[in-house]
């Protein structure tokens, strides 16, 4: 896939050499030591002084309420500490007091740009705990919405990141397409965001008449739109200068730090959980995993754009191969009976009553289930104690883990690049803080 990145061959070699010249194993500058030496000493040049500044928590470029304590020497960053928790709402704790089906709307509010993925992580985990098979059509519909969600999430990322780098018009273009996606979500699920569309056992409703036509219009349009984004950014001198060779962390180090998703792929590691066996029906579709070469900001941008194209391809294949049949399992112990059965069947009424009042019970057990969200490996751990409420729900949020690489991306660079690094890291603070 490297060839798809339209790279200038000579350029790559030149940059590769430049990277090798710096010893990656060299220890980072010890900020405390320098601070100790230099603090307030007489006769220092202004650019030698060490300055600690506080960025955020309400900085528009921190994409939420992330606070950064940055130690600077002149324009160079000596140390950078992310402080989070300003958006902590105790969702994991609250989930322990809700029956399983009421947990779904809670968890999708964690990472508010990838709500379908949060639902899939949780519902998939519970389905595996109760060993419930979901119908093929439900799998396809889930993939359809998740891939749309991936495009939506990347569009918000592209718009806001370009905005951070001074390209304001990108924001409007990206949000135009994002709005089309939200309209599609509204059409199929009734809500634009936080849809509660996935249920344990399948999805809440089948897609409505006319949805397919609208969606096909959109996927016919989207590749051309992505070309337009590229035309706006790829030859933009400012954008290239600010992203190229900035924020490089080696692939090995990223793996050690547990970084996954586009950040890892941009560094050249073709790692995507969608290719792992047994994850919905991704095996039915033909798609590629875009990878970058050196993992700078520019690679991260290219990888995400290419991922949008691959998502469009997956959606196209989903629509072409959408199987007929039920969209939700008919196991009445876990799934609500259809509304029309309630007036004719006593049993349906009993099941409905039990499911709505107490909820279903999940046999004791614990499971970690992970999927590929737009930001990397999103894992959900559910501990069931046999009652109708989970005893623990934990999310391994990719933004939270990826943020650990932020210090190494930024230290040694310029403070202006800090913004670029954070934008290309794409953390969603709602997911970080949960």
């Amino acid at each position, binding site marked *: 896939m490297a060839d798809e990145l339209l790279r200038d061959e000579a350029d790559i070699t030149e940059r590769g050499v430049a990277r090798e010249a710096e010893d990656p194993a060299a220890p980072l500058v010890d900020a405390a030591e320098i601070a100790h030496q230099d603090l307030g000493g007489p006769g220092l040049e202004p650019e030698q002084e060490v300055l600690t500044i506080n960025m955020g928590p309400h900085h528009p470029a921190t994409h939420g309420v992330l606070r950064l304590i940055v130690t600077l020497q002149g324009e160079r960053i000596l140390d950078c500490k992310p402080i989070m928790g300003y958006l902590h709402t105790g969702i994991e704790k609250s989930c322990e007091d809700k029956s399983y089906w009421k947990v779904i709307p809670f968890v999708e509010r964690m990472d508010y740009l990838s709500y379908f993925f949060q639902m899939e992580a949780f519902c998939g985990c519970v389905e595996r705990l109760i060993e419930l098979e979901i119908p093929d059509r439900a799998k396809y519909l889930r993939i359809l919405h998740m891939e749309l969600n991936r495009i939506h999430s990347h569009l918000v990322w592209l718009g806001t990141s370009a905005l951070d780098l001074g390209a304001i018009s990108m924001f409007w273009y990206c949000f135009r397409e994002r709005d089309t996606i939200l309209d599609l979500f509204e059409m199929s699920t009734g809500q634009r965001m936080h849809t509660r569309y996935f249920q344990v056992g399948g999805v809440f409703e089948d897609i409505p008449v006319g949805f397919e036509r609208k969606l096909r219009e959109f996927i016919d349009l989207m590749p051309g739109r992505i070309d337009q984004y590229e035309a706006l950014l790829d030859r933009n001198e400012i954008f290239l200068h600010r992203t190229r060779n900035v924020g490089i962390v080696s692939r090995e180090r990223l793996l050690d730090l547990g970084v996954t998703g586009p950040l890892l792929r941009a560094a050249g590691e073709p790692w995507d959980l969608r290719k792992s066996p047994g994850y919905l029906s991704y095996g039915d579709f033909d798609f590629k995993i875009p990878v970058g070469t050196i993992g700078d900001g520019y690679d991260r941008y290219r990888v995400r754009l290419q991922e949008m194209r691959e998502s469009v391809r997956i959606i196209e294949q989903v629509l072409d191969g959408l199987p007929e049949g039920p969209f939700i399992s008919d196991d009445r112990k876990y799934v609500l009976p259809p509304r029309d059965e309630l007036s004719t069947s006593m049993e349906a009424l009993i099941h409905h009553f039990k499911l709505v009042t107490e909820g279903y019970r999940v046999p004791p057990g614990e499971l970690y289930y992970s999927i590929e969200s737009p930001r990397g*490996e999103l*894992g959900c751990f559910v*501990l069931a104690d046999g009652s109708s409420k989970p005893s623990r729900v934990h999310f391994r949020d990719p933004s939270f*883990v990826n943020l*650990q690489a932020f210090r190494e991306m930024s230290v040694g660079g310029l403070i202006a690049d800090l913004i670029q690094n954070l934008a290309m890291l794409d953390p969603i603070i709602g997911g970080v803080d949960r």
Partner: protein
Amino acid sequence: MPDAPGLELIAQGIDKGRAGTVIETSVEHDRATLVINPDGVLHALTWLRDTPEQGYRFLSSVHAADYLPATPRFAVHYELLSRERMERLHVKALLADPAAGDGSNGLSATEKLPELDSCVELFPTADFQEREAYDFFGIVFRGHPDLRRILMPEDYVGWPQRRDFPIGGEPVLFTHNEIETPRWFE
């Protein structure tokens, strides 16, 4: 996921280096689990990471859970992944609660906390996640370079995700209830 005989081989391999590390093995919901003695965490994780034929070199997740009223009360879960074979292995270290039965309610400064060796040296990704487990469950990771609260405020008292921590909430101040919370402005 390693199959049941494979899991037994792993357990034997770990026990060969340090007897009594593996307490139990199980395969449930298509997932292999090793229950290990908390003292042997570093040994087991090092063995799983560095043995060439195992190669669980990627740590997906570290998280804690509270099993109240069971004993031992806590567990720290390590989700290991071998990226070459696309195999996951779940390692679970059971931790007893040293404060059990002494009547402390998790609010006293001298409270005894469960302790475990930190695996940040082996897997740098565990840094934030161990801090999170400390923050919410009060599990102390020995040797962690910077064990502070991460999501809760630094001056917070208590371990909020323990099962015996009340859900509760702070009263929200409105004009109709400001008399009930006198001198709220101080």
